[in-house]
């Protein structure tokens, strides 16, 4: 059995979200081919874990996806492809799959399964199925979900969301914090997270 964590987003409790994390995955090519073949048994969002900074942006993507699904405003074919698309900063769907979705070289994988009526999806059913099909080590996700950001490739994420590091804006920002926060240490990851989430919400507007 694979370790699966069930998230229930406030206000969207009727649509539980099953999330599993794997490392050292060896059959990414196979998993990807199943997605491409639109095999109904593989209706998941398979994400490259190096592209996920932390749990909150991922949960935001999920919430935006559910919102789009519930208001019938999906931009892509399925809710799971929508989830991948919503992670991407621009409206290029193909690119969003390439950048955030599973690729042949993916070794760290986040698998997400939405539970949308009338389909019954349970923690057990997802756990059982993923254990059968994913060749890799299942990694437990704790209460806060911090493990989802364990393998984040910060440089790559910075680049795709165009977050300049050490640029002009940043330097100014640092000075500001020095005057503002006093002894407070600036939480850079938290700031990246804020901007990424803002970009996601504003996407397509």
């Amino acid at each position, binding site marked *: 059995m694979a370790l699966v964590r069930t998230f229930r987003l406030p206000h969207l409790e009727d649509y539980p979200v099953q999330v599993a994390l794997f490392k050292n995955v060896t059959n990414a090519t196979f998993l990807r081919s199943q997605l491409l073949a639109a095999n109904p048994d593989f209706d998941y969002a398979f994400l490259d874990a190096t592209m996920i900074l932390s749990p909150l942006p991922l949960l935001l993507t999920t*919430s935006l996806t559910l919102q789009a699904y519930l208001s019938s405003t999906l931009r892509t074919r399925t809710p799971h492809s929508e989830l991948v698309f919503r992670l991407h900063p621009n409206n290029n769907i193909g690119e969003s799959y390439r950048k955030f979705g599973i690729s042949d070289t993916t070794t760290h994988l986040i698998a997400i399964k939405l539970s949308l009526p009338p389909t019954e999806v349970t923690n057990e059913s997802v756990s059982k199925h993923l254990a059968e099909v994913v060749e890799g080590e299942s990694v437990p996700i704790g209460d806060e979900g911090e493990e989802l950001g364990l393998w984040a490739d910060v440089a790559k994420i910075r680049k795709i969301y165009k977050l300049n590091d050490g640029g002009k804006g940043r330097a100014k920002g640092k000075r*500001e914090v020095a005057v503002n926060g006093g002894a407070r240490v600036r939480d850079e990851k938290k700031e990246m997270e804020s901007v990424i*989430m803002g970009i996601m919400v504003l996407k397509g507007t």
Partner: protein
Amino acid sequence: MAHSVAEPVPTIAPLSPPSPPPTDRPLHTLPAPFTTSNLQLLAQGAEALVYKTTFLTPNTPCVVKYRPPKPYRHPILDKRLTKARLLAEARVLVRAGREGVSVPRVLGADWEGGWLVLSWVGGGSVRQVLDGWAERVKRGEQKAEQALMDGEILDLMRRIGRCVGRLHDIGISHGDLTTSNIMLQSPSQESGPQPPLGGEITLIDFGLASHITPNSADEEGAVDLYVLERAFAATHPAAEPLFQEVLKAYSESWKGAKSVMKRLEDVRLRGRKRSMLG
């Protein structure tokens, strides 16, 4: 012209308006997916209903700002305005956040549904700090002059000045810069009766904020400062020197500050409003 006789001034009763037009968005309740459970109404302004709740995770507190439809407005215009204003607020917040000004994070939105979710800003407001300070001065626990020597509060004023300067420097005017909209967040997230003076300054309520154009930069910056000055003055006359400290720090904080300060004098003179032709 009809011949008339003396008559008392006729009195006219209030008008009865027609029924509001149908709308697909709720007027005084919440839009999907929100329900009344787990929601606490914080404020009901002219524009928005503001609720406290959680979002994304059960321990991420947030505010939901809902702009209900205005039945007096044509539905097409109403949708257009609601969407434009939500978007403007979100864009300003994301931009400010990107540039290192501490503001609420944008956690979610539905432009058609009329709502915006922002992260909760804990701590207390500068208004509370000033009220507490004015109270102590009034009770005579601290002489105003002594209170001014209080290094911590002066440091806070300077940080406010620099924070507002930074906001203007990145091309944003707040539009409603009162002391209630300047928060002090304590790192520990605990809220006591008095917000910590050393807490991080966070600006909130960007519902009337806008991106400044070079043409309007001085005016909009000056109006922000003027609104803040009035808010200080409303607290206590003794708070006046405190505001001077804010201004001093502001004027040294960015390159456009001098010309904004100059415009502030004009704005003060005309009491914000322009003199008008009949």
